[in-house]
C-alpha cells in the first residue's frame, strides 16, 4: 500500500520542531509499524538524508521503549498494543498517518520521535522497591501469598513504563505508572513495612518531576498497552491517605 506520512522532526531539545511530509510506497500489511519506519529510513539514506530517530528495542511489546502518537493516539488505534506490535494491516492504502513523539513537560524530546523518560526512573528510585538486600532472604514458601493476591499484584506489575499514560493524559499525569508500582508492592506482604514511606516519597517525586495531577478521565487506562487498571490510581490514593493518617 501507499501512504502519506506526516512526521515530527526536531533536531534537539531546544529546537522548535515541525511536521514534515513523506510519501511511502510498497508497504505490506504484514509489516509492523516500526518496520514501515525502517523502510522509510532506508529510502532517506538512499537520498543521503538523515534518518528519523525513534526509540525501540525488543519489538515484542515488552521492553516499553517504543511509543509514539499515531493519528493522535498513543501507540495507535488498537487496544492494549505497543507501537512495535501494531501492524500495517490496521491501515489502508492511501491513508495519511500523523506520527508524533509522546509529549509531556517531563518527557523532553531528544530528537524527532525520541524522548527522555528518565523521570520515571527517578520516581522508582524514590521508593519503588522492596528494600531486600542480597543474601538475606528467607525461604520463599515462608511468605505465602494467596493466588488472587499474587495475580492482582502481577496485573499491576505488568506496567512496562512506556509512558503512553502520560502522553495521552490532558494533564500529563504519571498517576497510572506510579499507581501501578505502588499497587504491585502494596499488595504483597514483603513490602508492607515500607508502604507508607514508599507512597509518600513516590507521589512527592512524581510532582517534583513536573507531571500533572490525575483528574480521573481514564484516558490512561484506555491507552495502556498492558491494560493496567485505573484502580491502581485509586489504590495509590488510598495508600497515600492511609500513610498521611498514620504518619507519626
Amino acid at each position, binding site marked *: 500500500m501507499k501512504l502519506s506520512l506526516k512526521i515530527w522532526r526536531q533536531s*534537539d531539545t531546544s529546537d522548535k520542531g515541525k511536521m514534515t511530509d513523506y510519501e511511502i510506497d510498497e508497504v*505490506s500489511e*504484514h*509489516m*509492523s509499524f516500526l*518496520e514501515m519506519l*525502517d523502510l522509510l529510513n532506508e529510502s*532517506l*539514506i*538512499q537520498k*543521503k538524508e538523515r*534518518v528519523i*530517530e525513534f*526509540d*525501540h*528495542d*525488543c*519489538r*515484542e*511489546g*515488552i*521492553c*516499553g*521503549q517504543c511509543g509514539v502518537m499515531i493519528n493522535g493516539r498513543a501507540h495507535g488505534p488498537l487496544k492494549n498494543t505497543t507501537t512495535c*506490535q501494531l*501492524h500495517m494491516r490496521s491501515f489502508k492504502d492511501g491513508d495519511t498517518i500523523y506520527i508524533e513523539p509522546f509529549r509531556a513537560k517531563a518527557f523532553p524530546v*531528544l530528537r524527532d520521535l*525520541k524522548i527522555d523518560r*528518565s523521570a*520515571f*526512573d527517578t520516581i*522508582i*528510585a*524514590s521508593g519503588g*522497591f*522492596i528494600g*531486600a538486600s*542480597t*543474601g*538475606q*532472604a*528467607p*525461604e*520463599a*514458601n515462608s*511468605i*505465602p*501469598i494467596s*493466588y488472587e493476591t*499474587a*495475580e492482582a*499484584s*502481577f496485573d499491576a*506489575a*505488568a506496567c*512496562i*513504563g512506556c509512558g503512553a499514560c502520560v502522553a495521552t493524559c490532558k494533564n500529563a499525569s504519571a498517576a497510572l505508572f506510579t499507581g501501578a508500582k505502588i499497587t*504491585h508492592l502494596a499488595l504483597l506482604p*514483603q*513490602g508492607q513495612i515500607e508502604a507508607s514511606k514508599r507512597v509518600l516519597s513516590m507521589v512527592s517525586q512524581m510532582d517534583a518531576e513536573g507531571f500533572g495531577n490525575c483528574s480521573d478521565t481514564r484516558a490512561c487506562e484506555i491507552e495502556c498497552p498492558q491494560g493496567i487498571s485505573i484502580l491502581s490510581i485509586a489504590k495509590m490514593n488510598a495508600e497515600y491517605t492511609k500513610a498521611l493518617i498514620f504518619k507519626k
Partner: protein
Amino acid sequence: MIDSKIPEGPLADKWNNYKAKAKLVNPANRKKLNVIVVGTGLAGASCAASLAEQGYNIQSFCFQDSARRAHSVAAQGGVNAAKNYKNDGDSTFRMFYDTIKGGDFRSREANVYRLAECSAHLIDHAVAQGVPFAREYAGYLNNRSFGGVQVSRTFYARGQTGQQLLLGAYQGLLRQVSLGKVTMHTRHEMLELVIIDGKAKGIIARNLETGALERHVADAVVLASGGYGKVYYLSTLAMGCNSSAIWRAHKKGAYMAGVSWIQFHPTSLPQHGANQSKLTLMSESLRNDGRIWVPKKAEDARNPNTIPEEERDYYLERRYPSFGNLAPRDISSRAAKERIDAGHGVGPMKNAIYLDFSDAIKAQGKNTIEAKYSNLFAMYEKITGINAYKEPMLISPAAHFTMGGLWVDYELMTSIPGLFALGEANFADHGANRLGANSLLQACVDGYFIAPYTIPNYLAGELNAPKATIDHPAFKEAEKSVRAQLDRFLNSKGTLSTDHFHKKIGRLLYEKCGLSRSKEKLEEAIEDIKALKASFEKDLLITGDDTLNSELEKAGRIADYIELAELMCYDALQREESCGAHFREEYQTPDGEAVRNDDDFCYVSAWEWKGEAKPPELHKEPLVFESVELAVRSYK
C-alpha cells in the same frame, strides 16, 4: 596457559570451599574501590546492586533509555530452581545432571553444580524483592516443567518471568542509585576497554544523546552486556543487542569461547517477508500443552483443521517418545528443520510447523489454557492476526541464545585480570546447548551470588595498587582509536546502509553457520565474510553527524559482527563433531542424530585475537568429568 581455577574438593563442596577462603575487603576500604558494570540486565543490574550493597562505588552503563529495558525483560517462560516443591524427585544433583547432559557434556562440572546449588536461593531472593511468581491457591509457589527435564522445577510469572525478575533487579539497582552508591549512565555505549599494566581499568563510552566520548576509570570492569544472537539479523533478540562490548574486549586480549554454539529456539514465529526486522519468540512453556506436528504428505496446503489425525506426523512424539514435545531445544529445532527441508513445512513461506492446542483445549477446557497462556495467545494474534485457540500456531526455529561468549574462569574473570564477564556475555555453564529457563537463572546467580564473592576477592589485591586516572596514556590511546573509527564511518562515501550489511551477514550465517554446518560451507563462509568486510569498508553510507545518530551506533556494531561472524565460522569449522546446538552434517547417525566425539573434542575452544587479517589462535581448556559419566545424549 588456561587456568580455570576450579577449587579443590568434592563437587558439592567446591563453592563453599571457595567462599570460605575468598579474600575480603574491610567495609571501611570498600568505598575506596570503584567498579564499572556494563549492561543492566539481570546479570548487570544484580551485580551492580549487590556490590553497591556491600559498599563499593559502582558506575553502571546501558545503551537503553532506562536500565529496565535490558533484554532480560523479554524472557517469558520461567526460571529453574531445584526446590523440589513438587516432591517429584528433584535435587541439586539432578538439576546439575540435567544441565550437564542438556549442554551435551561441553560445560564445566564445577560451574554447573554451583548454578544448581545457588538456584534455590535465587527464588528466595526474588520473592523477597516482590517478584509476583505464580502461586497455588494455598499461597505456595507453583511451578511447571520445561524442555529437557522430567521434573517440574520452573518458577514463572505468567509469560513475563524475565520482565518481573528484571524489574526486581532494576528496582534493587535504583535503590542503590538513590543511596548514592551507583551512578547510572543510560544511553551510553561502551566502545573500548582500557587496560593499564595488564589489568582492566576502564572504558571509553559514547554518550548516545550527545555523541561525546567519555573516559571512565575503575578498579575492575564487569561486562554483562548480553548475547550476540542478533548477528543473525533475524533473531529473537532485541534490535539493540550486540557484541561490541565483548568483542572490543576480545580484541584487547580477552579470549572468546564456544562462539559457534548458538541456540536456535524451536518456538519462534516464522519469517513472513523480506522487510522483517526480527523474529518473535513464543515461550517454550507452550510445549507443555501444545503438540507439534506437520502434515505427513509433503507440500500439503490444506487448512490444518481439516487434516485428519492419521495424516498428521507428531514427529517429536514419534522420534523421542520419553520426552515428546518437551525434547530439548537443539533436538526440537533440528527435528523441525529436518521436516521443513523434507518438504513438510507449512505456512505461506513453507518454513513453519504447527504447535497445536486443540487436544489440550479438549482435555482441559479453554479456560484452563487461557489461564496459563492467554498473554502469549494474545501476542500471537497481534502479530499474525490468527486466533490460536481456533487453529494451530505457526512456529519455526530462530537464532536465540548464545552459549558462547568471553571465556571466564570459575571466578567469572576473563583472561584479562580485572575484567569479569557475567550472564550471556560469558561462555560458562550452558555447554553446547542451554536448557530452557536456565538463562534467567545463570544471569541472576552470576550477579547476585557469585560476583559478590569473586570480584571482592580480586579487589582485595587492588586496594594498595597505584590508582589509575583518566589522564593515563592508555585512555588517550583508546579514545583516539574510537574517534578514528567513528570518523571513518562518517567519512565513508558508499551507498549502502548499515541494515544492508547486517542483513547480509545474517543471511550468510543462517545458510552456512546456522542450524547445521559443514566443512565446505564454513570454508566458503570465511571467504564470503572477508569479501563482505572489504565491501563494508568502502560501500557504507552513514547519514547524519556525530551527535545522536542511530545509524552511526549501528555501524560500529556491524563492524564487530562481521569480525565475530568470521570467528564463529572458525570455531564451527575446527570442531569436527556434532554437539548441542552445533550440528556438523559430516557427524551424524544414519537416523540424523548428532555424533559427539569425546576423545578429540572434550574441551572448550578459547580463541585469542591475533590481529587484523590473521587467523585466531586456539587454546583448549580440557573438560574433566569426575562426577558424571560422559553418555550419549538420548531423549528417546
